[in-house]
């Protein structure tokens, strides 16, 4: 049975200033509020998705100070002063991040529910010590579950971005 979301009117509510996608937000939240719930329910940034809510599926992946984390396993009030980046801060429909464009080009999704987390993971992976092979990408993407099974195309999308990044720019 799901418990109701913590209310910001709770007597234990705490003030917190969060920096999300470069913008500061002054909030008053119940300390139980996860970063994921805070993003979705308080800031209405619904790009980050709730799948398992226990750090097992990766749908909630965001970046804190440039590193990918499961936002469902973070208390929002512990992340004051840190740079939080969500899918909304990575790219927009008219200005896609190369990883987003590659997901479109490679058809790297079906239902799309896990896609935000996949993209946030993939963007972070580009800066991590990841070997060149598909197997290396699969290993470092194993924290993002896709129940439609779009994995081959997700790996292809990520590898295409890595290949393009390696090629010298023309001109």
């Amino acid at each position, binding site marked *: 049975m799901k*418990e109701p979301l*913590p209310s910001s009117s*709770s007597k*234990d509510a*705490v003030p917190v200033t969060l920096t999300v996608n470069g913008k500061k937000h002054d909030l008053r939240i*119940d*300390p*139980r509020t*996860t970063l994921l719930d805070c993003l979705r329910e308080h800031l209405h940034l619904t790009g980050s998705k709730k799948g398992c*809510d*226990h*750090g097992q599926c*990766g749908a909630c*992946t965001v970046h804190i100070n440039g*590193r*990918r*984390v*499961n936002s469902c*396993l*973070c*208390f929002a*009030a*512990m992340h004051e002063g840190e740079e939080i980046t969500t899918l909304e801060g990575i790219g927009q429909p008219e200005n896609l991040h190369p990883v987003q464009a590659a997901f479109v080009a490679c058809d790297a999704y079906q239902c799309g529910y896990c896609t935000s987390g996949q993209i946030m*993971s993939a963007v*972070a*992976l580009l800066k*991590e*010590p990841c070997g060149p092979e598909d197997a290396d990408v*699969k*290993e*470092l*993407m*194993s*924290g*993002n579950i896709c129940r439609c099974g779009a994995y081959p195309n997700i790996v292809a999308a990520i590898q295409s971005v890595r290949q393009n990044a390696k090629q010298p720019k023309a001109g």
Partner: protein
Amino acid sequence: MKTFALTRASDSAQAIATAAKATTAQQGAEIRFIGGGTTLIDLMKLNVEQPKTLVDINRLPLDKIEALPDGGLTIGAVVRNSDLAYHPLVRKNYAVLSEAILSGASAQLRNMATTAGNLLQRTRCMYFRATDMPCNKREPGSGCAAITGANRSLAILGTSEHCIATNPSDMNVAMAALEATIHVRGTKGERSIPIADFHVLPGDTPQRETVLEPGDLITHVAIPPPAPGSRSLYLKLRDRASYEFALASAAVVATVVDGKVTRARIALGGVGTKPWRSTEAEGELTGQPATQAVFQKAADAALRDARPQSENDFKVELAKRCLVHALKLATQPA
């Protein structure tokens, strides 16, 4: 989730003084330090943990990995698993530790999880995680539903009639083989605890998992210098290729000179109620030729006292083969 007060420790002394007011540092502690939160928040959502106060220790200056003058390494309590696994000195001198950490969890979780938190990682036994089931670890005296229930993934070494929960950590297994020392600061000052003495067997008090007392703050972990000429590795066997807990794993640190094993440190994961150092296996290896027959004797010795449950007798053979294969890989000519 039950509500709690969230506080941030300004220094270690304050964190210790706050936590010292708890009646226990074990299961059911009213005051908890929080680092990465990957275990604690998960268990709080399940109401398995219901702390009334959380002390955020993430901004304490315990986030450094430093080389020691003797060639060893100290690792701060809040060093993230990914930073530890990818650190050049760890990769160079302690491959077993890097491999063990990278074999566990996911990239996201490794970015969050801390060194001290991993030492205190809780079992994945499904009965421990389900508050509507009996579990002596969660609720002493309520019984162990796993012994007569779903126990395929649970322990075969170090169990008792009260608890068969597996210690799930990969890092701890490597730390056991590396003979790490855990440095703790508490109300009575500082002390250091060899990892072999840090976790305790369940016996008739499975709610007690470590020797930590209220107020005890893990400050850092020290690893001795690498044994000259040694090689180390971690081999993990599981139900899927990635992002899964071990059914059996082996951490091996071995030195081979002229075809003979001159020194070996062995620890097993996925099979013990604590990170399972096997001095029995080490005894069978030391001074013996690095051959399949010797490795098999070592594996037999490591699992001699295994007590499988109704669904996990396969683990006895799996753990043996895991250790034999790990020894082969660690001792083959470069």
